[in-house]
């Protein structure tokens, strides 16, 4: 016996550590796989809710509804091929005639709306554009149709990974 008191070894052996490490690696890999799959699922659902397609679709519906609902059934023109629709409406409560127009159309893969003024009393200059705005992108297909006093828009948005169909109808007022 040396001057140092002999101490009983009660730690882990290399084999213990190796086995424990192996178990730990397997456990970590399994947990990592679960987390990875969970993250993929999360991203998929998140994109379904907040992707450009979804937000663009909601904006398109809201914009279309709000403009068509204030438009008159006396001033609507639809493309025979259903590719655009033009509606007329009153700018203010004081307007004595339909003095504004909005035209929805697709340009490339963008859904756009052209807004402008109307002046039917001026034969030389009856119409002018105020602005043309982009409503949303990723448009795959867009169909406009009229049925009675309703105007329908069937909009398909597609990014390649996300696809969404937005169908909406809005009633024109009869004044």
């Amino acid at each position, binding site marked *: 016996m040396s001057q140092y008191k002999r*101490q009983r070894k009660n*730690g882990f052996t290399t084999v213990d550590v190796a086995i424990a490490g192996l178990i730990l690696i397997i456990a970590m890999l399994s947990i990592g796989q679960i987390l990875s799959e969970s993250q993929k699922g999360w991203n998929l*659902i998140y994109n379904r809710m907040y992707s450009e397609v*979804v937000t663009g679709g909601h904006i398109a519906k809201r914009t279309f509804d709000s403009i068509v609902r204030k438009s008159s059934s006396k001033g609507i023109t639809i493309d025979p091929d259903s590719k655009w629709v033009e509606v007329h409406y009153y700018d203010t409560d004081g307007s004595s005639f339909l003095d504004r127009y909005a035209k929805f159309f697709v340009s490339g893969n963008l859904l756009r709306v052209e807004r402008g003024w109307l002046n039917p009393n001026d034969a030389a200059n009856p119409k002018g554009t105020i602005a043309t705005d982009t409503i949303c992108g990723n448009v795959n297909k867009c169909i406009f149709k009229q*049925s009675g006093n*309703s105007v*329908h828009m069937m909009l398909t948005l597609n990014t390649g990974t996300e696809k969404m169909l937005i169908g909406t*109808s809005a009633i*024109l007022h009869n004044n």
Partner: protein
Amino acid sequence: MPFYFYNLKIRQEEPMNTQKTRSAFTIVEAMIAAVVLVIAVIGTSVYRYQAALGARHADLYSTGVRLSLMLCEGWSGEGGTTSYDPVTTFTPDLDIIDTNSAGAPTGFTELGSYEIIVDGFKYYAALSWKNMGNKITSLHIVVSWDYREGTNQNSSNQSYRLTTYVKTPS
């Protein structure tokens, strides 16, 4: 690694009476730590699963509401006529077909029942109407769906109802 080798922790030059042993993790402590870790991981996974499921349900609900509004506005736009046919109106732009009768609320007359597929998910619509007098017609639209993608409208566990009134032109 959270384990210590005791023999490596003993410094040779230290006299016996000053020797200190460092406490290591016991297997029980390691197991408890592992259990806590597993609970945390499972908890996170469950939270994410529930959040994703809720988002999916919200997505389906939004689409169901949009369909209800579209049918309601479409029918209203045609003056609430009892000859309204959404299949004719929306085909081929929308995947909609006639389906078995889903019935109508008491006092209402059924116009038709329809199966609509949007983005691969199946919805069922039931349209009915009621003459309220004074040339006013009540239009009732029910769009139903099943989060588990049921096979018919009777198995649907979610629905959205809309009622609107239209005045028939004189």
